[in-house]
């Protein structure tokens, strides 16, 4: 009998389920929203805000502008400036976690 390695099982499972999630259709997303009685727009806004926070402002437009303006090292420099390193609970305290 082989030894149970739950961390390997878990990663295999998450890999498979993430593939399923990534290919869900728009209809399935809408249906899930109805079933969960949770507005899709609210969940989407939450993620948009998180993306916006990466840029240090409410919108992503500036990220696009900075990339269009620049190239190579300058581009990376701008983005590095905005990059934050994830520490345990780094964003947990300021974002709603479910």
């Amino acid at each position, binding site marked *: 009998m082989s030894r149970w*390695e*739950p*961390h390997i*099982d*878990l*990663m*295999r*499972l*998450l890999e*498979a*389920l*993430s593939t*399923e*999630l*990534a290919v*869900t259709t*728009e209809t*399935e*997303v809408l*249906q*899930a*929203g109805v*079933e*969960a*009685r*949770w507005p*899709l*727009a609210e*969940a*989407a806004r*939450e*993620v*948009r805000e*998180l*993306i916006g*926070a*990466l840029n240090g402002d409410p919108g*992503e*437009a500036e*990220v*696009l502008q900075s*990339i*269009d303006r620049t*190239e190579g090292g300058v581009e*990376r420099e701008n*983005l590095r400036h*905005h*990059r*934050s*390193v*994830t520490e*345990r*609970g*780094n*964003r*947990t305290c300021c*974002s*709603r*976690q*479910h």
Partner: protein
Amino acid sequence: LEGASAMRPRTIKKSSAAVRDAASRPHIVQSGIARMSEWNVSPGGASRTIAVDNTAADVARAIHALSDADLVRLKALARLWTRGLPPGIGWADVLHEAIARALDGSRRWPPDVPILAFLSGIMRSICDDQWRRARREAEVLVCDEDVANRCAASVEMKSPTPERVVAAAQSLAAVDRLFAGDALALKIIAGLAEGLTPAEICQQYGMSERQYDTTRKRMRRALLRCGLAGSAS
């Protein structure tokens, strides 16, 4: 978090003109699917085409173009991968870090990989990075400097920490609870965790192809509901 992948595909930086050109074709990223970027070079006068990775600019545009439904999928993916992380790290943390890695170019977006799959792959590697880091921190606490260096070098070779094993077992139980009451889903979960293919799962559990597909759809919606409403189980 520690640096990303050790092996990165070779990339060729596109000119700003090419970036502007890409911007004038927003429909390419609106689909959420990465396109095959091409770069024409003329070595010795002969023109040939080389496929290159998408740039950080492409990533930014693709993320900017994500629809509400895509963002919901992204949140659900982040919540899913959080189950593979050490306790105390939330979905927003892992998603934040994944997007940061994608935007700053520390992870390259290969051609023909959908943006959501790309970000999901980054989240997966963040899981591994976090556990490696947790192990290193635990070992450094009990080692002197020389020993710590040897520990760090051998981290990859070691079996998982008891904390990771316990956390993984708890996460597996939580996924089971998510599908409690759906016997077929639980069978598929067990099969996927064992690394079985759909055909093998059907064979092992006496499931028809149609039952498998119908159950998969139920499972997808359950995962999306979980991502939306954010139930803890």
